[in-house]
């Protein structure tokens, strides 16, 4: 076997990287790491700096040293901005609670049962996850319009819960697959009903994973744009659409737009810094 013949007599096939001396290797690694950091951080830094520049200084953000918080003050003086943040917060929170509530049982069913019904449901989820959002949100707009739900809280909430049904059921199945069902059987032998076994045994065990998915769900809804653009108007402003509207006849008000973008980014930054473990767990597919 090849293992047995492996001796020092074999020439080591070397790449460019191996030919470098250790010092040069370390330098190469530092360079690679710096490049990654620069690529992912630079646009964010540019945005933050722009948001701190006065209106007249925004066009040459790399020149000049005047910094101000006036943009933030000005953004908040617009009533619609506060309203948009409030609405987005409300929609994100409600959509997360509802979509987790609706899909946790569905994922449990997919994980614990075999037969025609789970098979059919799983196939449906698979097919409907493929449908492009615009293909059902466009007619949903007409439906909402005729039901008087256009530009209402409920109208946008329904779309957000619906979009999560397929994906979350699938992810939740994975969560429950990772939990040994024997505890539930034991609970049922001890007199628990099926529902009781689900609620008292399986649900607490999946708790951390569900929380991780909840964090991501909240952020996705907070960041969502297409549904907000199609299903809401002036009565229910949401932050992503409001942010895209800092465009006047004179051009885009970049300093104000950046200030709002930085504030809209805060939840994402906080979550990345303090709940990274959960985020990474929730992103598993």
């Amino acid at each position, binding site marked *: 076997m090849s*293992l047995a013949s492996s001796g020092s007599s074999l*020439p080591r096939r070397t790449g460019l990287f191996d030919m470098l001396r250790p010092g040069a290797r370390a330098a190469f690694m530092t360079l690679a*790491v710096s490049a990654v950091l620069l690529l992912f951080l630079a646009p964010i830094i*540019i945005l933050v700096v722009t948001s701190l520049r006065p209106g007249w200084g925004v066009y040459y953000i790399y020149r000049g040293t005047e910094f101000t918080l006036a943009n933030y003050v000005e953004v908040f003086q617009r009533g619609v901005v506060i309203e948009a943040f409030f609405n987005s917060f409300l929609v994100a929170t409600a959509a997360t609670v509802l979509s987790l509530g609706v899909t946790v049982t569905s994922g449990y069913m997919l994980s614990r049962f075999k037969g025609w*019904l789970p098979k059919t449901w799983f196939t449906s989820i698979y097919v409907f996850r493929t449908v*492009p959002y*615009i*293909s059902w949100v466009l007619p949903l707009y007409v439906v909402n319009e005729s039901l008087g739900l256009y530009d209402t809280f409920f109208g946008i909430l329904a779309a957000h819960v619906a979009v999560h049904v397929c994906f979350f059921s699938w992810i939740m199945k994975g969560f429950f697959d990772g939990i040994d069902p024997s505890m539930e059987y034991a609970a049922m032998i001890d007199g628990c009903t099926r529902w009781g076994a689900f609620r008292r045994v399986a649900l607490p065990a999946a708790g951390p994973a569900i929380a991780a998915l909840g964090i991501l769900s909240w952020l996705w809804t907070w960041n969502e744009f297409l549904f907000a653009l199609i299903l809401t108007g002036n009565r229910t402003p949401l932050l992503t659409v409001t942010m895209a509207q800092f465009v006047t006849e004179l051009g885009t008000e970049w300093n104000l737009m950046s200030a709002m973008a930085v504030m809209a980014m805060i939840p994402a930054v906080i979550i990345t810094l303090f709940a990274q473990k959960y985020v990474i767990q929730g992103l598993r597919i």
Partner: protein
Amino acid sequence: MIGERLSFQIGLILPSVLVLLLFQVVPIFIGTDASFRRWSLYDPDKTWVGLEHYRYVLSDTNFLFTVLPNTFLLIVASVGLSLALGMAVALLLHRGIAAQRLVQTVVLLPLMIGPVIASTMMRWTFNDQFGVVNAFLGWLGLGQPAWLADRWYAFGVIVFTDVWIWTPWFALLLLAGLKSLPKEPFEAAALDAAGRWRIFTHITVPMLRPVIGVCVVIRAIDCFRTFDQVWLLTGGGPARSTEVFSIYVFMEAFQNLNFARGSAAAVIGTLIIMVAGLALYALINRFMDVSR
């Protein structure tokens, strides 16, 4: 009578099924129905016109020769580049580098801040007059293109933004994949004095194939419906030259105010991605079987 077991199963999925039916399946039926009718204010009867809208869309040169090629080009470019870059970042993080946690945090950020903020900042960064990219190019003495006013430059910025957002996703999933690989094959290869590149191409990639396959399929299907990045960066312009599928549907329905034609385009797009998605899935499945 349905058994206690079956009724429990039905009870578990009932809320999800209802939400899916009411807010996705019913709208899809309504949209499909509308795509066969004339849908305008001066025709309250919504006259049945058969395949008229489909004929229009499928003979629209814009749809056939700009929108569809753009959509698939975006998928290939974005998925390919984010996979390559994501793999590089995953390998870097897997090696164990200094400032590991800092790098991981920074890499996670684009995914978390979402496409709207990302596209906003990219549009500013690539602004032709005041953007930092052009300032930097000017400082180097290079040309300063009007990024978003030229079709291929604008398309490049869209791809770059999409890669920026999705590289972290590939990196995280590939890193998880790398961490779960057994160590023995790598030790054996090291004993055999294999070079780094050979280890990568002959051991790492084949063993990661299932993860790579799943990532590529999911991302490719999701990429087909891209809307936010294109809408916020170029709005489909200049002169509708960077439109992708979702933008085309949106423009037909809300700019040209032809809901029925937009619906026809939506149905066509849905059928395309379903067939493409199934084919992709079958291809990847086969590819992975061969590698095993």
